[in-house]
């Protein structure tokens, strides 16, 4: 399978099964359409393209043929067999700790129902956190690297417990030969010098929530009393980014129907000096007034393209920044096993609620049928865990024939479930945006090559 497209003047061809990517001139790009079963339909090509000479066509085809012979083009699909036969020895090695089911913001698009995840507002105790750490140490078996993500609600509302759990995990990690890496996601409202110092010392990554332009941010992310938040957080975020040498953090925003011109928000953040930026499409029930609709896609694509051009321009000038969804290691990246199976929710990554309940990921929290167990009994619903473990791009009908399957790895289970009632039926609008982002990311690489 191949995927071909032209963007920013480059003709790009992705050989889906090998991962190879080529840039073709106009002649080769036209000739490619007439290659069937490794052979050239020469006369068909010449009559469709009278502007091309026989010599040119044959010359371009000989280069195409070389790539085919080297298994860099029209490579056979041997991944399906790997997916069928691969018995994943996966273990739980990452926790999303819902340190606090409460929040001091009232974001209009919050999937966590403004922090309580449709349950009662509550805080995780150290005892629950301790059980969670013991649980992941035991479940991770021979894996050394363990990730803990402090999530909420707003984790800084329960920061003393964050500190205690972190210190406990580090101590236990030494005893059990585990390397803990911590991430904290925060809206920034409660940041102060002491917390910033602690975060920079202990958190290997920090996700700082801000949507971009002040008016966009303040409309969607008000405080409980309805006030704006931009002015309360932006300087603190700049300080954290600078103290971390512009690395190992993200300013992370969400775009909705309200700001389909999100290019302006990304550029606003870049112009503030942030070099690690993620701005993502909102995921909401389709009835919600802020939900992205199919008719919004052309505008979204236009913004992604503008952004790709601007990033390439800035990178050429040595003033670039990273946009999370355009980061693509074309020559390496994750191994094929990860690409087949996706995010790991439910079998490598789980979310723990303040009560100690275990869910496949933060987005499934509160959906009773997806409860996997709890940290006290340390028993996992194996049948449900296996459903996630066994799911891969070849078990999803829509993914099998998609050229982007090894980039998104089947997409987000929760989005699929929330939109289609089936975790193996991908969220179509999300797929379309994902494909556009991959095309843009590769086009950036082509522009910079």
């Amino acid at each position, binding site marked *: 399978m191949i995927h071909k497209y032209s963007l920013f003047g480059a003709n790009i061809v992705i050989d889906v099964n090998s991962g190879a990517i080529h840039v073709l001139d106009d002649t080769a790009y036209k000739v490619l359409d007439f290659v069937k079963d490794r052979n050239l339909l020469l006369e068909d090509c010449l009559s469709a393209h009278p502007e091309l000479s026989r010599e040119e066509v044959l010359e371009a085809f000989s*280069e195409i043929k070389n790539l085919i012979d080297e298994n860099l083009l029209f490579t056979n699909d041997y991944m399906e067999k790997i997916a069928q036969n691969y018995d994943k020895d996966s273990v739980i090695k990452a926790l999303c700790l819902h340190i606090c089911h409460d929040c001091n913001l009232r974001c209009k698009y919050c999937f966590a129902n403004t922090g309580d995840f449709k349950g009662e507002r509550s805080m995780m105790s150290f005892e629950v956190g301790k059980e969670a750490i013991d649980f992941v140490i035991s479940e991770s078996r021979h894996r050394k690297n363990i990730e803990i*993500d402090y999530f909420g609600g707003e984790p800084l509302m329960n920061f003393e417990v964050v500190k205690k759990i972190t210190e406990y995990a580090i101590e236990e990690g030494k005893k059990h030969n585990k390397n803990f890496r911590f991430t904290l996601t925060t809206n920034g409202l409660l940041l102060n010098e002491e917390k910033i110092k602690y975060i920079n010392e202990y958190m290997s990554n920090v996700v700082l929530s801000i949507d971009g332009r002040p008016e966009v941010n303040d409309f969607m992310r008000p405080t409980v009393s309805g006030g704006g938040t931009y002015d309360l957080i932006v300087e603190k975020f700049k300080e954290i980014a600078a103290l971390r040498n512009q690395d190992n953090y993200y300013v992370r925003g969400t775009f909705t129907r309200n700001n389909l011109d999100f290019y302006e928000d990304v550029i606003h953040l870049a112009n503030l000096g942030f070099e690690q930026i993620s701005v993502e499409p909102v995921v909401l029930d389709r009835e919600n007034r802020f939900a992205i609709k199919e008719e919004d896609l052309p505008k979204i694509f236009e913004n992604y393209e503008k952004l790709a051009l601007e990033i390439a321009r800035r990178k050429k000038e040595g003033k670039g920044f990273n946009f999370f969804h355009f980061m693509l290691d074309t020559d390496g*990246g994750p*191994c094929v*096993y990860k690409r087949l199976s996706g995010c790991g929710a439910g079998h490598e*990554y789980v979310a723990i609620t303040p009560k100690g309940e275990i869910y496949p990921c933060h987005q499934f929290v509160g959906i009773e049928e997806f409860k996997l167990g709890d940290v006290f009994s340390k028993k996992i619903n194996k049948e449900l865990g296996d459903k996630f473990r066994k799911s891969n791009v070849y078990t999803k009908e829509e993914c099998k024939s998609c050229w982007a399957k090894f980039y998104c790895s*089947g997409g987000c289970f929760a989005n699929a479930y929330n939109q289609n009632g089936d975790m193996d039926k991908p969220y179509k609008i999300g797929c379309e945006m994902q494909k556009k982002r991959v095309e843009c990311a*590769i086009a950036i690489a*082509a522009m910079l090559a």
Partner: protein
Amino acid sequence: MKHIKTLAGAALSKSVKKGGCGECQTSCQSACKTSCTVANQKCETKR
């Protein structure tokens, strides 16, 4: 080659031969939380 420039080699084919170690970061830990992108994750052995 005159007509074709290869931007990236057969990363997937190479990876099949090497196998996976399972030590890498899970996708949602880095930034996303509402969407899944796997291809932008780093391979742990290349850190």
